[in-house]
């Protein structure tokens, strides 16, 4: 007979399964075995889980559809109900939450509305638990609750916090339900959910790595204490967690109800078949909408860190390079390859492979497959190339990710253009979209809140950015974001309840949408006054020097960014004397009216559009610029009447009507503009003539450019960007040099550019330079 102590020791030595029940997967398998088998057979057959046919769906399509509709409806409904528990307007008003249902081995079955990028990230977290034998330790049991927000496990950024709950039926794991919310603060080195200060993981906020935080449906005390002491804005954190747990439990009940009704075997067949069904549907969608071939694009976004108070190795002005290639195979496989992406860096804009691949579904579901059947089937129908060591796939656990959207939204914009060229070729002109705006600015800050507790804010007004133009109409203004097509700017009275900032303006910004035959959707600005601040700081994050989209088929990009804030102002006095002061938008920044009606010790009006915490008090002002989308087609082809209307509606400044659109306008009695058609015809003819005069044959232009490349005339930031791509990718280097027909010895090396190379690991030149 063994003693209790011996028994325990034996168990630990053998790595026993919890409660000694053996594996929790199907047919006595471990989850790891299940995962391996699914991967292998899917790869081998080209069908998810090897399902060459769909016996259940084909024999009983109605019953199959009934189960789908019950699960899908229930998941959507759970999200709607649970979100009302939250206090954060990010969750409640902007809808930044999502629930998804998974197979035991972490493939998604159905997903709610919301931030569906997390279909993949929560799947990655479950896979991580499987990979690390959580069945053995800490054990996966009915009514457990797990939490994850670790970027390097495959999250988007620290503020997306996952709650994961297993679903058991008679001792067997039948699946998982995951819920995610975008929390307002994660205890990073600066406040706000997408902070700019952090440049490495250890400043990026409180990271929880797939931790068991509750048993028997109850959250553990140690978890509650530790987590609430690790973040700011605790009230929001707490209610967000209650939202996620409540939603997961509602969905678990729903699934158990379905299993009770249909039996576990039917449920098992269903969840496998619905994924293969999703794969096939997606393939058909690609066949219907796209033309086989390669679609290449590129985007850039600036990282102006040189003058920010960050670590020495991070003080670099750099550019994130995002070349991409969509390859539509003849069998309709969709391949997206980011070969040539440059090196990750010491800033909070790095991404993980899961965030880019999963995020692509957010985008594709808005255009290529806008339906409720999106699940991991679509993932099995595609292939991704994400180079290791690039900012999309850092090869260092130290990388920071807090504001990864800064670069992700830039990297996705070329994909819209690639797909749109294909839609255009097929004649789906309405589906063409010139690309997404750089959906910023992120206005963030923190300090002591009205209740005396630590508080953080993160305005989500950029959820209502301008949208790219289509090939038949203008892009819609102030309405959506890439990451949330159901965008909204929210009510000012609600934001003012949460932020010690009152509004002095909310106005459309002329010229923010890209010009074109069809104009990009306009962006706008809000202007905020410090009011009720207490130990407060503010900072901004957005695109600055560079336009991150580039317009389509002759359309202009949306306007690039800038920042405006004024500290230590004379506004108190001005208000008392009823004198003018900055209001509305900074309508014409070249002739800024604001600057004439305010005195301040410090005014920031520059392109430092990512900044770190700056002290902010009452009567200081800060502007939030929400960007516009790119345009489509040559601006000279725009109907002159629409240009005049754009002036009247505040979308375009009068002087650009002539300069950009070639439209001569005249002003009426009430300041209303009309187009002078005769003059416009002449003006446009002249512009076309000037264009022809200015132009040179492409071959000639390439020759000139090649000379500049040979002489390394590019700015240090551009050279640094390319050097980072060259060091990682031989293929990209060969393509680049081949295209420009550069001599073998020509190269730009990071080491030669007088910038820190701290943390640069992969370097194919290391040994042979």
């Amino acid at each position, binding site marked *: 007979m063994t003693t209790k102590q011996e028994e325990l020791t034996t168990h630990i030595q053998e790595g026993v399964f919890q409660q000694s029940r053996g594996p929790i997967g199907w047919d006595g398998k471990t989850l790891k075995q299940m995962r391996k088998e699914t991967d292998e057979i899917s790869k081998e057959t080209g069908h998810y889980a090897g399902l060459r046919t769909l016996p259940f769906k084909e024999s009983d399509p109605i019953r199959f559809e009934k189960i789908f509709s019950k699960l899908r409806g229930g998941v959507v409904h759970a999200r709607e109900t649970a979100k009302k528990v939250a*206090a954060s307007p990010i969750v409640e008003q902007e809808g930044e939450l999502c629930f998804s249902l998974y197979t035991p081995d972490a493939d998604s079955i159905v997903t709610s*509305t919301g931030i569906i990028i997390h279909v993949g990230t929560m799947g990655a977290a479950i896979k991580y638990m499987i990979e690390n034998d959580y069945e053995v330790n800490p054990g996966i049991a009915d009514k457990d609750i797990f939490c994850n927000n670790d970027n390097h496990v495959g999250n988007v950024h620290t503020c997306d916090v996952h709650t994961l709950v297993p679903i058991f039926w008679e001792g067997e794991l039948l699946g998982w339900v995951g819920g995610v919310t975008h929390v307002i603060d994660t205890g990073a080195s600066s406040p706000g959910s997408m902070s700019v200060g952090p440049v490495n993981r250890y400043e990026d906020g409180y990271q929880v790595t797939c931790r068991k935080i509750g048993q028997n449906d109850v959250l553990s005390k140690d978890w509650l204490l530790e987590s609430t002491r690790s973040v700011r804005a605790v009230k929001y954190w707490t209610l967000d967690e209650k939202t996620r747990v409540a939603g997961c439990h509602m969905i678990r009940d729903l699934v158990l109800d379905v299993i009770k009704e249909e039996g576990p075997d039917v449920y098992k067949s269903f969840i496998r078949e619905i994924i293969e069904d999703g794969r096939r549907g997606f393939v058909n969608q690609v066949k219907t909408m796209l033309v086989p071939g390669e679609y290449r694009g590129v985007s850039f976004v600036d990282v102006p860190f040189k003058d920010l108070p960050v670590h020495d190795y991070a003080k670099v002005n750099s550019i994130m390079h995002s070349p991409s290639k969509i390859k539509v195979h003849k069998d309709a496989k969709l391949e997206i390859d980011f070969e040539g992406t440059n090196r990750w860096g010491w800033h909070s804009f790095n991404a993980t492979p899961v965030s880019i691949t999963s995020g692509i579904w957010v985008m594709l579901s808005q255009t290529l497959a806008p339906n409720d059947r999106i699940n991991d089937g679509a993932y099995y129908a595609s292939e991704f190339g994400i180079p290791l060591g690039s900012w999309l796939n850092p090869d260092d656990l130290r990388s920071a990710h807090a504001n990864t959207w800064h670069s992700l939204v830039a990297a996705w914009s070329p994909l819209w253009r690639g797909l749109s060229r294909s839609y255009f070729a097929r004649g789906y002109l309405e589906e063409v979209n010139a690309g997404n705006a750089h959906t910023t600015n992120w206005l963030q800050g923190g300090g002591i809140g009205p209740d005396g507790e630590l508080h953080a804010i993160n305005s989500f007004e950029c959820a209502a950015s301008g949208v790219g133009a289509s090939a038949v109409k203008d892009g819609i203004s102030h309405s959506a974001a890439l990451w949330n097509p159901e965008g909204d700017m929210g009510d000012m*009275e609600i934001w003012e309840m949460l932020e010690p900032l009152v509004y002095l303006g909310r106005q459309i910004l002329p010229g923010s949408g890209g010009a074109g035959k069809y104009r990009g959707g306009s962006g706008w600005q809000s202007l905020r006054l410090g009011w009720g601040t207490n130990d407060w700081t503010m900072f901004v994050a957005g695109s600055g020097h560079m336009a991150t989209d580039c317009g389509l088929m002759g359309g202009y990009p949306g306007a690039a960014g800038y920042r405006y804030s004024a500290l230590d102002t004379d506004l108190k006095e001005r208000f008392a004397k009823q004198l003018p002061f900055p209001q509305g938008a900074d309508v014409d920044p070249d002739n800024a009216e604001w600057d004439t009606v305010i005195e301040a010790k410090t005014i920031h009006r520059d392109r430092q559009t990512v900044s770190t915490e700056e002290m902010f008090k009452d009567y200081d002002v800060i502007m939030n610029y929400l960007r516009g989308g790119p345009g489509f087609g040559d601006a000279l082809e725009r109907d002159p009447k629409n240009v005049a209307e754009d002036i009247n509606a505040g979308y375009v400044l009068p002087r650009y009507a002539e300069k950009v659109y070639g439209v001569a306008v005249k002003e009426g009695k009430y300041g209303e503009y009309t187009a002078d058609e005769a003059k416009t015809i002449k003006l446009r003819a002249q512009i076309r003539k000037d264009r022809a005069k200015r132009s040179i044959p492409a071959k000639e232009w390439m020759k000139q450019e090649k000379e500049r490349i040979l002489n390394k005339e590019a700015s240090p930031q551009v050279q640094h960007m390319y050097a980072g791509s060259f060091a990682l990718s031989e293929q990209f280097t060969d393509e680049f040099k081949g295209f420009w027909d550069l001599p073998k010895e020509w190269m730009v090396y990071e080491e030669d550019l007088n910038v820190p190379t701290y943390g640069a690991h992969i370097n194919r030149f290391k040994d042979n330079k």
Partner: protein
Amino acid sequence: MAKSQILAIDAGGTMTDTFIIDEKGEFVVGKAQTTPKDESIGLMESAKDALTYWDTTVEKEFPSLLAGVYSGTAMLNRLVSRVGQRVGLVLNKGMEDNHRMGRAVQSHLGYSYADRIHINTHHFDPPLVPRNLTVGITERVDMHGNMIIPIYEDEIRPAIQQLLDRDVEAIVISFLHSFKYPDHERKVRDIAIEMVKEAKKDIKVFASVDYYPVRKESHRTNTTIVEAYAAEPSRISLEQIGTKLKEVGSDFDLRIMASHGGTISIQANELARTCVSGPIGGMVGAKYLAESLGLPNVACSDIGGTSFDVGLITQGELAIDSSPDMARLVLSLPLVSMDTTGAGTGSYVRVDPNYGNLTLGPDSAGALVGVCNPEGGIETVTVSDCHVVLGLINPNNFIGGKIILSPEKAYEAVKTQIADPLGLSVEDAALGVTELLEAQLGNYLESMILGKGYSPAQYVCFSYGGGGPLHTAGYTKGLGFEDVLVPAWAAGFSAFGCGAADFEYRYDKTLDLNVAEKEDSSVILNTGKVLQSAWDELKEKVAEEFDKNDHAEDTVKFRLFYRMQYQGQLNDLEIEAPFERFNGVEDWDVLVKTFEETYSRVYAKSALSPELGYSITGAIVRGIVQVAKPKIPTEPLSGKTPPADAFLGKRKVYWTDGWIDANIYEMEKMKAGNVVGAFSILESTATTLVVPTGFEAHLDENRIFHLKEL
């Protein structure tokens, strides 16, 4: 002898229906063309038509009417087709774009899921007030009502003058947080009124705080604009109707159905809430019927041609949504909360070419029925086509034979579009569509009830509307409702509901009263004082409204409600205060306890968060006076067997076990006490009740069928 008691008017865009109900609850329906310029003309024609069924006249009957309720779509049409008054808008300077910018959510309101995520489909409707009729005036107050920037007085007159110069027909003023600090809006209002007078113009001025003193500026501003833009013009036409009714000898004050589920006078201050009267009539009727039958919890379901509407009556109350959307606008009206899904009998049925799955709706053939209607020109299969294939509806007696349907066309369409692609027989495909629709509706109904923290076993389900009873058995199957009721007079249910509505005003006010979990009694007492004074203010407002129709304050039954949440949350719950006056600390405990009971039911116990403290976010007063209401029909019980003349014969119906012979009955001829088993179809001109395998139905003494799952 005149017997008419209640007049209910349903003035649609093209037809005006009148329902005249007698002392026994029996009613006649009349129809006439709507006359938009003077709606009273169409109304009189319609009433005349109705009374011909009783062989009598308007002149004879109208003096005996005890009550009349109007509901119409004129206001909504004016709003949707943007043909309202030319309104000038005064906003905070710097925020003049706010109204036309939306709320971005208005670019996808009312969209199906697929279109909500399909960004290229989004669009904004034109703003009710264009940018060039919007002016700004400098002022700012904060969320607590503290002044940050005084109103820049010099800007007021030029701003108003600009609007007057542009010939506006009404002026709306809406400043941020005005509900916390009304002085600035009222100052501008008074100056505007003065300037209008000086200019000798007839322009009404609306300050948002006088109408909707509630938080969320886009909701409040939109609603006040709707008041000026669409509701005010209706006041004139309602007065015309009122005058005409008096002229023919009636002696009652015409009331209008309003969004909060009560009726209000045509002289009411806030008329915009009568904009949404149509679809809630059924809910109000259900509430009245439920009260009469002593049922506290009722799930109401109504299937029409284009949609399935469900709403809940819980503990005898209709749920109210206080920031709803309507006509793609976010509003701050109290609206009887109803969920609508785009699945009706006219919904299109398709097989997705890429995913191979069956899809229902969200678009529909509406009144054109389906491919089976040879005159309709519809090419895509609808749910009704499947009904025809299955034999559930009589192709020769659709809407009393007004449309003769073609079973052959329906069969062919279902075959090529649905059955062949799915690899099913035509009949199985048609049955599958019906089953899927019913499963979706059942899920929808169930999730709504679960979302309230209840289970279907605690509810009775009411089914009415043209298409409802055909699917009632299907969508209630297995949910375990306490009972399932189908009034035999289901077709007139909405009008019945209008006639049965209370004469009721409801006013809301936003409050921000924060109380910690363990709070000093002085804070609690002060909170109670502020809450009570809000109730007093609203009671006065309600009393003033009733006074317009000479109802003295002591005849009004007041009910007090409060909105509560945990501090910091953005969603509150509306709860009736279980006392008549806040007197002391123990009343606070009662408010908290009542709140937490409701909260834990709705969001699960784990979501209770007393540690955050509580916020009272609003006060509500409802005032009701007694009015005449229609009687619920009663008749003596007969035997179980339906009379011979109710039996119309047999028809082949395809069901789960293949083709069977169904018994067909004429609904009107069934007697109270009759019981029918499966498979039976009970037909009337406006609706069809199906009693499928596994069910039976009996008719009670109120002419209500009880559908029982065996």
